[in-house]
């Protein structure tokens, strides 16, 4: 029933907002919540409890309890007591079979009670085990909190915004506003957040409705403002989160019509709704008793008031009919009423403070948990600090018949907790996990302190020694969407990227890079490189300039290879290893000047290699500069017997076999673009890797394809490149090697110049050399065309004999080739092995020399 206009109400009676509840039209005012509008329209049952399907009504009206959760526009678990009304909203009940007023599942409450105590599913639904999936499905349908509508489509934008504050005040009550005002007067930059509207404060930025969901290291306080998550870094955090009214524990304490004082305050003062006809007030503090004034002002008859500070009854219980309060009995005296306002005092909402590192202590004289020893930069003001007027300490429970609900979220009764303790769950953390008290939607707001008192009584000890459960974020429910924000996941693209897409390439991820897997015909593309001419974009390679008087000495120390004797204009293949002698990365090192080296790395290894180089120089302090040129330059590889002819058309320099020899590095203009030409042979054919400024990527790619058209140039992708390199038995770090592999076992002993004084990993390699190795990297050839998978098991004489690292069908060679790690005893040319493919053992032979052009004649042509 709506009361006439009252001073200070939050509703705007000049307009009407309409929404539907279970298909019926409901009228409300702007400023109403869905809950207040439904209550004004006469609804009293708002939900059915989690397990027993007991009818539940409004209790707190402030979003702390689970009693008003409904589905709004297909979003489940919306607390309608704080959800603003919206035109056209569709509200439905949840967790019912039938309706809120007649839920068929309430049979669980009437009949199932003895069979469904806490943890019953650990006992009654254990055997036969094969029936568990059916039990589980049954349980899921019968108990729960709302249902996710899998067919609902919703699109909403969430953003994350970084903010700073000299002072961040959480809570816009009296204490919070006072603290904010004082800080603003001191000239500080102050931000105040609250869940509800707050009147403007001079000099203070007020953010509402917004909720601080946690306090993290470094003064980080994420604030959920619905569509935006504000990540605040605050120098000073002031918590004015207030205190939460606590329920009393007595039989009938969960009936519809039993409310906390805040419920009455908000219904009457904010929404001008009459909460009931005849009320009874039982309170442990003055704040609860004062609500009698609100009741009388709303025309409610206050039949009886009990001040627990004066006297604590031995017995208190509420009688109900059809789940609604009818009368309350106190020590034998019955009072008829339809509304029981109860308060066990107020408990500081200390969670954010505990997250920040405050210690929480039980104050037995007041029966509340109080935060103490706040860390630097964190303050507590107002009721959250324990500044509360004296209150009675409520009894652990008020005797009488019937079930006393300790946790209304999870339907846990006093008896359940006693039984759990008797079964041996004697620490509060264990008992919490077994009974699920404090683990429901209220997250302990209404049940943590009462459960501690109950615990203490059962253990015959004082509540102060029980301890508390750990406070963790989020302090209040938060949507996954607002935590995700826009989801920034970087992707790297070469400057030739769009040409690949235009050519119809299938793109794939290599680390953060987008690369073409192939242009539709990987085998054909691979074969074409042997027969004519192919072009591949290798711009993803890491590229470093290592320059300075100590550049050569630096590389000598870092690599097992020798570089001091590398002539200007020449390239060498190098393998980088850790001090444990494990292979980290590989690439080419070209000397482009006396003190200038051009180092390439693998595509995914570039960042790691730079960090590695910079770290060693932080230790050695040599006179060398390391510059990351990965994005500065594009690189393409033109490979195949016709590569020289194409290059000759595009540049003035001598491209003959003497002009640019195999492993030469030469600077020249190619098609008018300044270029570093590296003649190397990863794919086993005559080829030139052109490194040039990345803004010219598309131009040079287009020009190469155009000018090479009559030479039948074809682009090729990563997959054909992998086939080609495998034909040459060129390793791919991370594919054919793992974190344990070293250059000796991987078949590259010439890399390690052990006569050098020192280099990273030298001693480890020496020790490997002395010890010998358990496995060796070799090639193999299948007898038939089957292709083993990576990791394929090698079997010899029925015993495990190694594993496959790479395998491909080579179209050019017409057979399946691969590489594998095998015990040294098997590492002989032609050894017969068997490889497990699809459960069968397929025959193969070990090969130690490259499958294609083992002497490298094509490369050097």
């Amino acid at each position, binding site marked *: 029933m709506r009361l006439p206009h009252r001073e200070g109400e939050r509703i705007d009676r000049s307009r009407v907002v309409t929404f539907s509840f279970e298909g019926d039209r409901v009228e409300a005012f702007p400023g109403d919540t869905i809950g207040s509008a439904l209550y004004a329209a006469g609804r009293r049952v708002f939900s059915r409890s989690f397990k027993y399907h007991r009818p539940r009504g409004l209790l707190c009206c402030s979003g702390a309890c689970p009693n008003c959760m409904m589905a709004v526009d297909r979003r489940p678990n919306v607390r309608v007591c704080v959800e603003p009304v919206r035109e056209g909203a569709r509200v439905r009940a949840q967790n019912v079979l039938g309706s809120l007023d007649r839920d068929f599942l309430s049979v669980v409450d009437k009949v199932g009670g003895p069979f469904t105590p806490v943890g019953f599913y650990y006992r009654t639904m254990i055997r036969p085990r094969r029936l568990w999936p059916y039990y589980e499905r049954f349980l899921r349908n019968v108990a729960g909190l709302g249902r996710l509508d899998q067919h609902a489509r919703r699109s909403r934008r969430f953003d994350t915004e970084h903010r700073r504050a000299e002072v961040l005040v959480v809570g816009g009550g009296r204490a919070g506003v006072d603290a904010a005002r004082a800080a603003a007067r001191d000239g500080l930059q102050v931000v105040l957040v609250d869940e509800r509207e707050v009147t403007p404060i001079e000099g203070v930025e007020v953010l509402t409705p917004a909720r601080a969901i946690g306090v993290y*290291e470094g003064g980080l306080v994420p604030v959920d403002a619905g569509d935006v998550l504000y990540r605040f870094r605050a120098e000073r955090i002031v918590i004015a989160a207030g205190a939460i009214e606590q329920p009393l524990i007595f039989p009938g304490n969960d009936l519809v019509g039993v409310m906390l004082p805040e419920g009455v305050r908000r219904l009457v003062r904010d929404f001008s709704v009459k909460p009931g006809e005849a009320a009874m007030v039982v309170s442990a503090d003055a704040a609860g008793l004062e609500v009698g004034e609100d009741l009388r002002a709303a025309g409610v008859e206050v039949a009886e008031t009990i001040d627990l500070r004066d006297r604590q009854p031995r017995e208190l219980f509420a009688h109900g009919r059809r789940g609604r309060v009818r009368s309350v009995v106190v020590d034998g005296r019955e009072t008829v009423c339809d509304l029981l306002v109860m308060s066990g005092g107020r408990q500081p909402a200390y969670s954010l403070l505990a997250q920040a590192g405050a210690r929480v202590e039980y104050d037995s004289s007041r029966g509340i948990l109080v935060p103490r020893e706040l860390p630097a930069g964190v303050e507590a003001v107002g009721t959250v600090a324990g500044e509360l007027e004296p209150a009675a300490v409520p009894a652990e429970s008020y005797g009488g018949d019937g079930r006393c609900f300790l946790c209304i979220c999870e339907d846990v009764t006093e008896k359940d907790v006693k039984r759990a303790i008797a079964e041996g769950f004697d620490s509060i953390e264990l008992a919490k996990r077994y009974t699920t008290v404090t683990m429901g939607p209220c997250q302990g707001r209404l049940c943590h302190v009462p459960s501690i008192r109950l615990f203490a009584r059962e253990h015959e000890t004082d509540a102060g020694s029980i301890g508390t459960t750990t406070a963790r974020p989020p302090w209040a429910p938060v949507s996954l969407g607002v935590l995700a924000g826009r989801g920034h996941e970087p992707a790297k693209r070469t400057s030739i990227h769009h040409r690949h897409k235009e050519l119809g390439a299938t793109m794939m991820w290599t680390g953060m890079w987008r690369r073409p897997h192939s242009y539709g015909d990987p085998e054909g593309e691979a074969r074409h490189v042997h027969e004519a001419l192919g072009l591949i974009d290798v711009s993803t390679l890491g590229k470093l300039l290592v320059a300075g008087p100590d550049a050569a000495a630096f590389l000598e120390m870092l690599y097992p290879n020798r570089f001091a004797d590398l002539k200007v204009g020449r390239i060498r293949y190098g393998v980088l290893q850790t001090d444990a002698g494990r292979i980290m990365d590989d690439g080419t090192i070209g000397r482009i000047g006396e003190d200038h080296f051009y180092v390439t790395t693998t595509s995914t290894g570039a960042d790691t290699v730079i960090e590695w180089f910079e770290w060693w120089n932080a230790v050695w302090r*040599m006179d060398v500069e390391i510059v990351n040129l990965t994005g500065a330059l594009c690189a393409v590889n033109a490979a195949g017997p016709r590569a020289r002819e194409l290059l000759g058309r595009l540049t003035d320099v001598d491209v003959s076999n003497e002009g640019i020899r195999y492993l030469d590095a030469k600077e020249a203009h190619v098609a008018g673009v300044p270029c570093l030409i590296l003649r190397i042979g990863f794919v086993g054919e005559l080829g030139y890797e052109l490194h040039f400024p990345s803004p010219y990527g598309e131009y040079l790619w287009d020009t190469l394809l155009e000018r090479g058209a009559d030479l039948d140039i074809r682009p090729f992708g990563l997959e054909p490149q992998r086939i080609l390199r495998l034909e040459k038995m060129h390793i791919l770090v991370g594919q054919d090697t793992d974190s344990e592999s070293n250059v000796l076992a991987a078949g590259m002993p010439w890399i390690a110049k052990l006569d050098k004084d020192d280099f990273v990993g030298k001693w480890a390699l020496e020790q490997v050399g002395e010890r010998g190795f358990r496995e060796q990297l070799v090639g193999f050839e299948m007898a038939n065309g089957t292709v083993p998978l990576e990791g394929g098991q090698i079997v010899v004489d029925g015993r495990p004999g190694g594993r496959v690292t790479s395998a491909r069908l080579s179209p050019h060679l017409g057979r399946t080739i691969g590489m594998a790690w095998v015990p040294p005893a098997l590492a002989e040319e032609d050894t017969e092995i068997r490889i497990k493919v699809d459960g069968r053992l397929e025959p193969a032979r070990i090969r130690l020399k490259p499958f294609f052009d083992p002497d490298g004649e094509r490369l050097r042509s």
Partner: protein
Amino acid sequence: MSFLLPCPNCGPRDVNEFAYAGEVTQRPRAAPSQRELSAYVYFRRNVAGVQREWWYHRFGCELWFVAERDTRTNEVLGTELPPEKTPAATPVRSHEPTIPDAPVA
């Protein structure tokens, strides 16, 4: 993890701007025994207390530095940049780390 790490060049920044390389260690000065090498490569003191450790400002100035951090509270007590480079004229004996290690307990 969200503490603020004070980069000696850029000032306090979110720790996620940095890469971490663990305790400062002492590289063996001459050919080590297998035991010494294993200790250097694999063992760390892993103190519950103030630790000297390497950090790299990946998303910032790209400098390596050493921080002293209390591993129990993530409070950073101090940071130290490596000293300036030695000029080419005096060649470096490359096994000597220029930031001395904390004494081993």
